[in-house]
Every structure is written in structure tokens, then in C-alpha cells.
């Protein structure tokens, strides 16, 4: 296993910029998720690491070696593709053996390693089948087996779970995480699903428009998003964001709907750094719902209620803005009930409207 280092990598397609000056280091044995909406450059980044695309600029190191000019076959990597890319005319056995054959491994070794990989993934009984005779989950395992059969320095995974149904996805997610822990493998994992990134990765790199937005542990990314994009992208339901004006020299916020919110010392200091207006961010769990008004409570009206069993999401309208809050399952609210919202000042996020960046201490 090895460290992977991206230094200011850039990729252009003609006039469009797919990856714009991305630098990050994946430590040896680390599971890193590249996450972002489609077209954000995450798959391009992965393909650059794989050597399937050529860099426009920057450097890529795998271990101590600079691999910019190396062919994929010489980079000692393995990759799992979204559609698995199993060779359709080969049996499962031949699929697993192919990477070893290409590396001129001795026949006996091939057989031993293929069987070992098959056993560890519980696909021994499928070895003589062809890919089209396998279910999605089985194909997924074979693809994984083909990647691990020859003990590469880095595993690259391109949305490997997105073709599975929801139940299988949860199961494979756990298996992949276990796979990483058992092998101490270096894994770069591309996904558009922030939940996968949050649940599996040691660190996640959030990308948008080819630019790296934030690279940190899921916990930090979730609790301290660096900018509006990350705040809106990570977490489900998405963080509530609403614009406000800084009033009273930073002591409070004034909403366009007419509400006023007094800020704590710490938040006031942050708000004073804003160059213009701010955007207030609060996760659903940090919003309290009340039946009667009080100072620093924002009035609203219940739009709709979504019970999910152990938690109930409440959509609240504040004038035209929609806010999602959550309450326990035993609290009964009905559409059009008047409610008042309060915020946990310690978990409040403030962003600068002009730059979109989080306002820090």
C-alpha cells in the first residue's frame, strides 16, 4: 500500500476545465471519498490518478514515484468501475486471472491467488459462470475480486455501489468498509452520494466545478462546512440556509421576513466579519419548534409533516422560505399550525453572502 499525492493537478477538455488546481494527499492505508454532484470533476480526478486520462498540469505521486507519464498498467493500481466492466466473454475465473496473466504470474500462483480472492469474497461457486449470468451484487463482488487479486498499491473505485438496489447497497457498504479495515488498503472512492462518503471514508474531498471545496474527516465536513456549497451538499435533509442582514452592529440578525434574532457573543463576532449580508445555516436537528412566541423565536407556519418512524420532519414556511426542522415521533403537528422556531446558537453556521465562505472565529 502507498500514499497518493496530487499536486496542483489540472485537466482541460478543449476550452472547458474539468479539474482546476486540486491538491490533496491520501495517506497510506486511508479511505478517501471524492464526492460532489455529477460533472464536478471527481471521476476525472480518479481517471487522472489511474492514468486513463492525461494531466494538463500538476503532478501525481503514488508512493515515492511520480507517475505523470506512466501507463495505467505500470502504476500498480486496481480499479472498480461503476458498471463493473467485467469482461463479458470471460468466465469469472478468467476475469480474476486476467490481471495476473498480464503480469506474467506463474500459472500455479494465478490459480492459488484467484481461489484465495474468490474465497474471501464468497464467490468460489461462481468461478465458472459468465458475468451476464450473475446478479448485480455478485458482479460487484467479482469486480472487487479482480481488483484485490494482485495486491495493488491503491484501489480506485468509481461509484461501485450506484448500480445496486438500496438494500444491497447498505450491505455492500458495510462489506467495503470491512474490506478496507482488514486490508489496510489505500482507497480512493468516487461517489455522488454524500451519505456513502460520510459513512465509509476516513476523509472526504468535496468537489464542485472542478475545484476542491473541502478536504477533511466526515465529522469536520459535516459540523464545520467551509462554504455554502459544502453546507448544502453534505447532510440529508440539506442544511437550512436563509439570508439575513447584520443589525445592531453585529448583535443581531434581521430577516427579510421581518424576524429578528439576537446572536451569542461568538456568533456576533463572526457576523461582524461579513462584508455584506450573511446566510444563516442550521441543520434540522438544531432547530427547536415551539407552540408560542418568545424573543428570538421566528414565527412560521407548518407546511407539511413527514413522519419517518423514529423522527418526524416538519416543513415550516417563513413567508416564502422553506425550513425543515425535526421533532420526536410523539409530537403531533398539523399542516397550517402556527409555530415558532428557535436556534441552538452553538451549532449555528454563518456564511458571507458575497464570498459564500463560512465566517470563522
Amino acid at each position, binding site marked *: 500500500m502507498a500514499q497518493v499525492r496530487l499536486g496542483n493537478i489540472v485537466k482541460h477538455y478543449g476550452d472547458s476545465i474539468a479539474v482546476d488546481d486540486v491538491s490533496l494527499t491520501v495517506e497510506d492505508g486511508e479511505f478517501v471519498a471524492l464526492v460532489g454532484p455529477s460533472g464536478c470533476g471527481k471521476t476525472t480526478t480518479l*481517471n487522472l490518478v*489511474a*492514468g*486513463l486520462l492525461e494531466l494538463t498540469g500538476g503532478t501525481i505521486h503514488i508512493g515515492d514515484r511520480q507517475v505523470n507519464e506512466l*501507463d*495505467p*498498467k505500470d*502504476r500498480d*493500481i*486496481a*480499479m472498480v*468501475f*461503476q*458498471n463493473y*466492466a467485467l*469482461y*463479458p*466473454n470471460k468466465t469469472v475465473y478468467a476475469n480474476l486471472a*486476467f*490481471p495476473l496473466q*498480464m*503480469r506474467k504470474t506463474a500459472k500455479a500462483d494465478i490459480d492459488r491467488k484467484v481461489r484465495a480472492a474468490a474465497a474471501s469474497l464468497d464467490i468460489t461457486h461462481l468461478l465458472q459462470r459468465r458475468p451476464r449470468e450473475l446478479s448485480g451484487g455478485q458482479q460487484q463482488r467479482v469486480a472487487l475480486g*479482480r481488483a484485490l487479486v494482485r495486491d495493488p498499491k491503491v484501489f*480506485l473505485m468509481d461509484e461501485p455501489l450506484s448500480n445496486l438496489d438500496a438494500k444491497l447497497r447498505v450491505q455492500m457498504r458495510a462489506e467495503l468498509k470491512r474490506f478496507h479495515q482488514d486490508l489496510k488498503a489505500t482507497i480512493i472512492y468516487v461517489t455522488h452520494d454524500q451519505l456513502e462518503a460520510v459513512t465509509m471514508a476516513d476523509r472526504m474531498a468535496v468537489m464542485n466545478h472542478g475545484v476542491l471545496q473541502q478536504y477533511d474527516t466526515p465529522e469536520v465536513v459535516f459540523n464545520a462546512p467551509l462554504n455554502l456549497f459544502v453546507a448544502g451538499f453534505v447532510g440529508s435533509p440539506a442544511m437550512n440556509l436563509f439570508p439575513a442582514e447584520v443589525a445592531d452592529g453585529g448583535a443581531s440578525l434581521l430577516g427579510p421576513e421581518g424576524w429578528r434574532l439576537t446572536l451569542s457573543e461568538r456568533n456576533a463576532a463572526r457576523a461582524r466579519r461579513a462584508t455584506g449580508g450573511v446566510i444563516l445555516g442550521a441543520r434540522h436537528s438544531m432547530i427547536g419548534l415551539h407552540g408560542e412566541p418568545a424573543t428570538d423565536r421566528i414565527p412560521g407556519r407548518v407546511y407539511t409533516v413527514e413522519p419517518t418512524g423514529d423522527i418526524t420532519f416538519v416543513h415550516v414556511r417563513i413567508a416564502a422560505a422553506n425550513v425543515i426542522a425535526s421533532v420526536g415521533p410523539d409530537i403531533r403537528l398539523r399542516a397550517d399550525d402556527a409555530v415558532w422556531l428557535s436556534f441552538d446558537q452553538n451549532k449555528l453556521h454563518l456564511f458571507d453572502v458575497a464570498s459564500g465562505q463560512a465566517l470563522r472565529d
Partner: protein
Amino acid sequence: MKEHGFWRLGGKLYLAALVVFTMLPMVWMVITSLKTQFAALQYPPEWIPRNPTLDQYWLLLSPANAVGREFLRYLFNSVWVSAASTVLGVAVAVPAAYAFSRFRFPGRNLLFYSVLLRNMFPAVVFLMPLFIMMRWLGLVNTQASLILTYLTFGLPLSIWLLKGFYDNIPVQLEQAARIDGASRFQAFLLIVMPLSAPGITATAIYSFIMAWNEYVYALTFLNDKDRLTLPVGLQRFFTEYATNWPGLMAASFIMSVPVVALFLVLQKYFVRALTDGAVKS
């Protein structure tokens, strides 16, 4: 529902009429080929031959007589010319089609469009210069001249059809192969080639049929009786035995059988090959 039935009935009647239109010439060809010369030249015609005979077929296909030897010679020439130009064309077209499908090298579009545009040019535009070229190369009246010139239509067509097949093979398979340790060329050879075998077969057969049916070049480049291909041979036949309609129909029938059989067997591939480019967008 009633309206639905109306359209369906109309469709059925239309198809029935179309089948009659399509089949009539072919049926009459077969019927005539089973008649004697005398029976063929009757008015009103004998709708069903009173004394059906396979004489014409024996005549054409038996090496025991001059006519048969001549006809078999044409048949053999056609097979040879069509097969050779097909093999040559496909061999050259496979790597080119693959490159057009996969690589983005400078000039790709320009080159590919010029390949496509070839389909627009009539054979006659190429006929004179190629004739001059063949004279210069000393190839006039040889089958090599035909094999070479058939590439003028066989090659662009093959490139176009094959590119369609390669476009349908997911590029991830080659990427996987390259990551698994294959070079670009190995990925092509070991992974893509086996998968494109059906496409190559379909393309080869299509180009074989085109060559088999080709007429203008064969008419212009060949005049030595021993070297003619079937279409020109048929015409020669017609001038020589002008009133032997049953013989001519039998010859037409024999000439049509291989292509129609090949076609019907591989209909699925064919239809796909023909329509692939047009309906994709």
C-alpha cells in the same frame, strides 16, 4: 378500440399488397426458370409450367458442357473477388474504425467525415481515373484491379459499420484491461477484438454482398471472358443466348441464392448495421 381495428386491418391489407409486389418478380423468375424455352415464349403465358424441368440448372451447373463450365467459372471468379476484397477491406478497416471510435487525435473529425463523404460519390466519378490508374499499373483485365477498386466502397462502409459496433462496446472494459496490466494495443487485441467478432462478421458479409453484386467496375475493367464475375457474366450470357429466358432466369436465381441466404440468416446483424448510425441520435 374500433378505430384501432381499422388501422390494423389497413396495415394488413397494405402488407399483403406489398408482399405481392415484392414477390411477383421473384416468383416469376423461379417459374420461368423451370420452363423449357418453348414454354416460356407463349402468349398468354403458362402461369404454371405444364412440364416443369430443371434442365436449365443442369446446364448451368454441370461442368460437362461449355455453358456450364463458363457459368461455374464466373461463379468462382465472383467468390474469389468478393472474398478477397472483403478480407482486405475488413483487415484495414478494423484498426481504423477502432481508432475513430476511441481516440481523439487531431484531424480525427476531418478524416472521419471524409470517410463518410465517400458514400456520396458515384462509382462513375472514380471509374475513369481508376481505369487510367489500372492501365498504368498494368492491371486492366485482371481481378486484382477489381479487388483493389472494391475497396473504394468497401472500406469506407466497413469503417462506418465497425465504428458503430465499437461505439457500443463500453470503453470501461478497455480501461479495466489497461489498469489490469494490458497495454493499449493488448486491450484492443485481448478484450475488444473477441467482443467485436459478431460486428466484424456482419460487416464482412455486408461488404461481401456489395462486392458480389457490383457491376460497373467489373463491366469496365474486365473483358477477358475467363475473368468475368457473375453480374457481367450474366449480361454476356444474355447477349449470347438472347432468347433463352429460362436459362437467364435460372442464372439470376443461382446468383441471388447465396446473398439472400446469407442475408436472411444474419438479418438481425444486418438491420442493425444498416440502421445503427441513423437512429443513434
